């Protein structure tokens, strides 16, 4: 077994990247992710990892450099947040379209304007259709564990897609917590060197990123759709193998106190920790509430969600990014679509919260749980989209 240490979310990701023996890191610093790449650059400088650290002038270039490196067969990591991820937007689609198994750490942060450096999910949700596998961690421990699994999932030839591992800016990126780390050798055994399906090689010329007109583009995109479907099995396998190694169980989502729950909160990332604590408190008062926390947001785990929902009568879905003008925000839309598709008729309402890093308190969550219980009892939703704590 490994040892116990104290790491912030950024440091936990950097440490995992080091143990994954990456070959190339190209990244541009941006709050609140900066420390992630700072620590990795130190590892490279100190010779702790045999990797090329490419200093670039922007995130657009960072991810472009990563794609080039990935095509040579290298194991590649990058990291970003907020405006940086927005600047990468164009290249996110190139990375997934060219099937580059890049892993990226994202310290989620609000998007301008107004300028704000704190945590919400606007950045990744703004790029949620980019064809990447998207994972949200609740703690530095989860971020560490998912990074190691992410490389294995991404590089599997049934998948060959980039993966983003998301941590809430500041709340996770800058908070030090207890993290159990594995032995270097165990990680190397779990994650052997990458075996690329093809590499760019001057002696065997190939064309990558050729023009693809209406007669072929759709088929190439359909390959990506299939790869994301395939990734379900791969993620399952990798989770199982990781569990035997680390004795920590991962899956598409985590459920808490859901067995006989009447009402539930569904949310991503660190908020789930607070929600679980509040649920525990309400449970002690005899209130049947539970929490569902999707780890994997793309591909969206429909079957697992339906299983997790069970016989719950009302769900409050918490979104930390605004889908302006949409009937519901992103996570809630996916939940409702999934319930509809599986013929589940239960009451759902959406809570938009925590924009620009505004705290969500145990009391906020208690109120949401109580409203969900009320909806479960009456079968009537009073307000489909709530804006938690916004002032008039």
């Amino acid at each position, binding site marked *: 077994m490994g040892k116990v240490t104290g790491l912030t979310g950024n440091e936990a990701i950097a440490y995992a990247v080091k143990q994954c023996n990456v070959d190339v890191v190209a990244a541009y610093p941006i709050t609140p992710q900066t420390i992630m790449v700072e620590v990795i650059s130190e590892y490279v400088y100190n010779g702790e990892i045999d990797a090329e650290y490419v200093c670039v002038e922007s995130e657009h270039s960072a991810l472009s450099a990563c794609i080039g490196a990935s095509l040579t067969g290298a194991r590649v990591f990058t990291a970003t947040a907020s405006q940086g991820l927005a600047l990468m937007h164009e290249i996110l689609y190139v990375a997934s379209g060219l099937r580059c198994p890049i892993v990226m750490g994202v310290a989620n942060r609000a998007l301008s304007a107004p300028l704000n450096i704190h945590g919400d999910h606007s950045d990744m949700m703004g790029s949620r259709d980019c064809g990447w596998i998207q994972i949200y961690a609740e703690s530095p421990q989860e971020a560490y564990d998912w990074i190691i699994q992410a490389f294995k999932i991404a590089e599997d030839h049934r998948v060959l897609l980039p993966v983003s591992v998301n941590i809430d800016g500041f709340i996770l990126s800058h908070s030090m917590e207890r993290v159990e780390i594995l032995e270097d050798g165990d990680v190397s055994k779990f994650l052997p060197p990458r075996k690329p399906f093809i590499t760019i090689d001057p002696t065997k010329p*190939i064309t990558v990123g050729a023009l693809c007109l209406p007669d072929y583009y759709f088929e190439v995109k359909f390959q990506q759709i299939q790869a994301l479907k395939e990734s379900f099995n791969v993620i399952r396998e990798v989770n199982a193998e990781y569990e035997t190694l680390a004795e920590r169980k991962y899956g598409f989502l985590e459920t808490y106190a859901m067995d006989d729950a009447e009402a539930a909160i569904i949310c991503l990332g660190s908020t789930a920790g607070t929600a679980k604590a509040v649920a525990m408190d309400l449970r002690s008062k005899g209130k049947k509430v539970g929490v569902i926390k999707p780890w994997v947001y793309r591909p969206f785990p429909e079957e697992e969600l339906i299983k997790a929902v069970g016989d719950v009568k009302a769900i409050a879905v918490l979104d930390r990014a605004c889908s302006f003008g949409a009937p519901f925000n992103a996570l809630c839309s996916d939940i409702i679509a999934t319930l509809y598709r599986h013929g589940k008729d239960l009451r759902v309402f959406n809570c938009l919260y925590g924009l620009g890093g505004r705290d969500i308190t145990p009391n906020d969550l208690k109120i949401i749980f109580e409203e969900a219980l009320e909806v479960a009892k009456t079968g009537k939703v009073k307000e489909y989209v709530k804006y938690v704590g916004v002032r008039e």
Partner: protein
Amino acid sequence: MSEKKLGWKSLSIGGYLLEPGSAMKYKTGDWRAFKPVIDQKKCINCLLCWIYCPDSAIIRLEKYVEVNYDYCKGCGICANECPVKCITMVEEER
């Protein structure tokens, strides 16, 4: 031009082209809406069409020229430049 197109299972992953020079295999002739038809009796073999053709789709023969319909996109430059007006643009039937 109506060769069977590959489906997603047979296409190389990510649309990679795994052999060099494969652009030759892409028959751009099926983009054509109008095809140039040469009246070879009128052709004086001046080769202006051969010089102007942006797709190198004019084939030089001893006494006259022919069109390589695999690659001719039907732009009509040849017909426009022909000094004896022996090239007519005829609408493709599909």
